[in-house]
């Protein structure tokens, strides 16, 4: 009994107090009592400001409470304190005083007050009243809207998402001025209350997919969501796959274009990227620029990307297979040339390839992490070491350098960072398979990869569409990017309920 008590108490103590239900008792009419209670709740919070003053209109004692970093100082000084303290007036407004802020919410319980303070509202306590007022004076440190860093675009807008959810939604709304653009707000997290908003076109997007997405987000039980990537990992269909099952974009134009196709955008407050779902494998080969360049050129670039995917995954593996296993397929002359270069190299092809690939990955990672001026040095050092010295030293053959360089260039072409990461990982798997079983190993790897890809789903929609299951109508925007006036329908892969996207825009006759 004693032990169980002891254990029980310990367990109880280990739960942080913030998570405990705060006293849901109503607010006292005494101002002093309220402020004392507030101080007891927010102890060791030096940035909590409590400002006492008298409301001139009614003569009531009042206190304004806020967290100094999360509010807009100008708004507090000019729009709240000044009118309350100095303005005389009839005082016949709804609350008995006039304030020049847009949003006033009367609150009746302590938990509401607490969450409002933490979200950057300022709270007005008025003596003698059991209701308090949350004033919309939010204003936290913000970054300016800048050009997106990772997803550069030549012709697209130079606006990227920032770290404020409402701003990001506004950026998307600028593209879709339609009342069918609906927003579902959900709060996730026990400790942080991350605000997650799902944006979609109500008359286009499929309700089942929406329900699935909403369910998954609502069922999350986490402390707080720091970044969109976390959310993606927590709600994706197959967490063991190397392939990304959602797109995270930092471009409002890309997000808007996806919403218009019938997909969903998930905006996570405090994160500068937006989640797009459901997506297919081929979505990762599309880029917003494709739609603003001429269609024939966009098609060419698409084909180039798909070729690049295969090169990036299979080229080093194929080289290893051909050199160490199936050399009979190379003509003798070519074999002799390769042998000439490889003669001095002490390593087997697999070790040679792994050595080079790992070096390259390291350089790449170093280039990303280092500040830009130093980052360039990595390129120069790598270029000289890999391109010249290592071959002259006889450690690596010329052809291996060509193969690795070609592979690296190919993987840089792919427009989506997550997909590139997957490609890098799979490449190593293929290299191992090729070093053990030659071309058969590669084919087995290919079969396994295909088997995995066709079984993957993104929010319950097949990942490998429009190839398996075949949807010929969607092919217009996969390998090729047909002229925009040919794409009158929304892609089937999104399961849009309203498929017509546009009317006939093709100039008729001889185009006059």
């Amino acid at each position, binding site marked *: 009994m004693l032990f169980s008590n002891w254990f029980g108490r310990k367990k109880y103590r280990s739960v942080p107090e913030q998570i405990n239900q705060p006293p849901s008792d109503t607010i006292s009419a005494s101002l002093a009592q309220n402020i004392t209670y507030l101080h007891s709740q927010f102890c060791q919070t030096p940035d909590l400001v409590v400002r006492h003053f008298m409301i001139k209109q009614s003569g009531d004692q009042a206190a304004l409470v806020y967290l100094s970093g999360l509010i807009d100082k100008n708004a507090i000084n000019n729009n709240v304190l000044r009118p309350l303290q100095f303005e005389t007036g009839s005082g016949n407004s709804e609350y008995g005083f006039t304030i020049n802020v847009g949003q006033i919410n009367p609150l009746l319980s302590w938990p509401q007050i607490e969450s409002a303070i933490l979200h950057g509202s300022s709270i007005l306590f008025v003596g003698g009243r059991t209701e308090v007022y949350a004033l919309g004076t939010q204003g936290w440190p913000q970054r300016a809207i800048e050009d997106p860093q990772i997803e550069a675009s030549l012709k697209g807008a130079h606006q990227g998402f920032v770290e404020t959810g409402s701003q990001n939604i506004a950026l998307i709304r600028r593209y879709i001025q339609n009342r069918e653009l609906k927003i579902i707000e959900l709060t996730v997290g026990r400790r942080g209350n991350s605000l997650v908003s799902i944006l979609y076109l109500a008359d286009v997007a499929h309700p089942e997919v929406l329900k699935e997405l909403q369910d998954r987000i609502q069922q999350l039980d986490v402390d707080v969501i720091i970044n969109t990537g976390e959310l993606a990992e927590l709600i994706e269909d197959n967490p063991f796959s190397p392939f990304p099952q959602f797109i995270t974009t930092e471009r409002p134009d890309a997000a808007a274009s996806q919403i218009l196709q019938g997909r969903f955008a998930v905006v996570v407050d405090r994160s500068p990227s937006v989640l797009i779902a459901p997506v297919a494998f081929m979505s990762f080969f599309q880029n917003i620029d494709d739609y603003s360049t001429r269609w024939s050129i966009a098609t060419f670039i698409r084909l180039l990307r798909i070729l690049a995917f295969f090169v990036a995954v299979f080229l080093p593996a194929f080289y290893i297979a051909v050199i160490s*296993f*199936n050399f*009979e*397929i*190379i*003509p*003798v002359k*070519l074999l002799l040339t390769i042998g000439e270069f490889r003669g001095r190299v002490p390593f087997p092809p697999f070790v040679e390839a792994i050595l080079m690939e790992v070096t390259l990955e390291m350089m790449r990672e170093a280039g990303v992490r280092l500040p830009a001026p130093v980052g360039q040095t990595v390129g120069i050092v790598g270029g000289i070491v890999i391109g010249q010295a290592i071959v002259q030293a006889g450690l690596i053959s010329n052809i291996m350098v060509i193969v690795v360089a070609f592979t690296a260039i190919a993987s840089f072409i792919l427009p989506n960072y997550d997909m590139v990461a997957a490609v890098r990982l799979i490449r190593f798997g293929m290299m191992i398979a090729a070093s053990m*079983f*030659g*071309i*058969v*190993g*590669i*084919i*087995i790897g*290919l*079969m*396994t990869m*295909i*088997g*995995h890809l*066709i*079984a993957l789903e993104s929010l319950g929609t*097949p990942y*490998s569409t429009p*190839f*398996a*299951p*075949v949807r010929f109508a969607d092919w217009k925007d996969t390998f090729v990017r047909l002229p925009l006036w040919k794409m009158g329908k929304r892609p089937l892969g999104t399961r849009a309920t309203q498929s017509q996207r546009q009317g006939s825009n093709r100039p008729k006759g001889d185009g006059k």
Partner: protein
Amino acid sequence: MKKYAYNEITSMQYIFLNSGIQVSVFFLAMPGKLAEKAGTDGWIALIIGWAITVAASLIVIQVMKKHPEGTLFDLIARYLGKWAGRVAAIFFALYLFYYAYTGLVEAVLLTKAWLLPQTSASTVMLLLLIPTYVIARNGLRVLGRYAELVYMISLWIPFVYLFPLKDAHWLNMVPLLKEGWKPVFSAVPTTFFSYIGFATTFILYPFLKNKQKASSAILISDTLTMLGYLFITVICFVYYSPDEIQKYNEPVVNILEAIEFNFVERMEVLFIAFFLLIFSLAWIPTIYMGVFCTSWLLGKQDHRNHLRILWLITALSTFFFIPTFNQNDRMNDFLIQIGIGIEYVFPGCLLVYLWVQDRFQWGKRL
């Protein structure tokens, strides 16, 4: 209530699945065997075989129409009793496993002979079993997607086979019917070998999304198979002389030796590797369906445990025994015999029986 609604396949997936099971490892040897029996008139036998196959497949569809919501075993269980259904399920499971195993062994032997002479057959078998498991565990819908995808990425192959045509001797084909119809007819049973597999419709039918189109789908799929065979056979016939073709075990592969580029010397090696994708359509769906039969037998919804057990048995057994080429040939001969029984004779008998039964009961009810 639809029992199998969660796992529906489209008509297109059905066409490719069926055709994929038919066009399997066996097509490599087909032209040689045809030439052996019927000379250069072998292609006529292919067309006759196709006609018979179409008739038999339509019979299968007719049988399944009697009980469209269930598989063959549900149907037999309904008409002939529970135990008859179970016996049918056991027979079908055995047949499908045997079909899959024969294809798998043939693929292993070919891979070993052409690509990996140094590696042991059991290792190759294990290698092939990896993607088999990855794909088969996900059920029929994914299998359908796999069949579609494999077909799509193999579309370039026929164009490569046009290369050897520059050395073709079209005169090999004439005169038609050099020795009359007799050799042609004698080759017809050989062609059945290339068409068997359509009996999987007995199991696939309830999964079809669009059952009204089942007849046309199977017609398209049989025709697709026939056209593929015809294409490859005619090319082999015009490229090789009638005597020469019989010297090769796999003329379909050897013919690629004619293609040579400055950068690739032996195209056929690359091809055999790529063909593994197509071959896999012969054993992955059949293994799945075999496992489906045993799961049905035990009344289980989830086939994965059975698949794992079968996978382990196959993997372990290869360490102790793997057939040689000659044994595999004999396995093939046996397969064609039971194949003719199960796929051509049995559906006809079943249809007649069902018809009689319906008539009889109809009379009784009056």
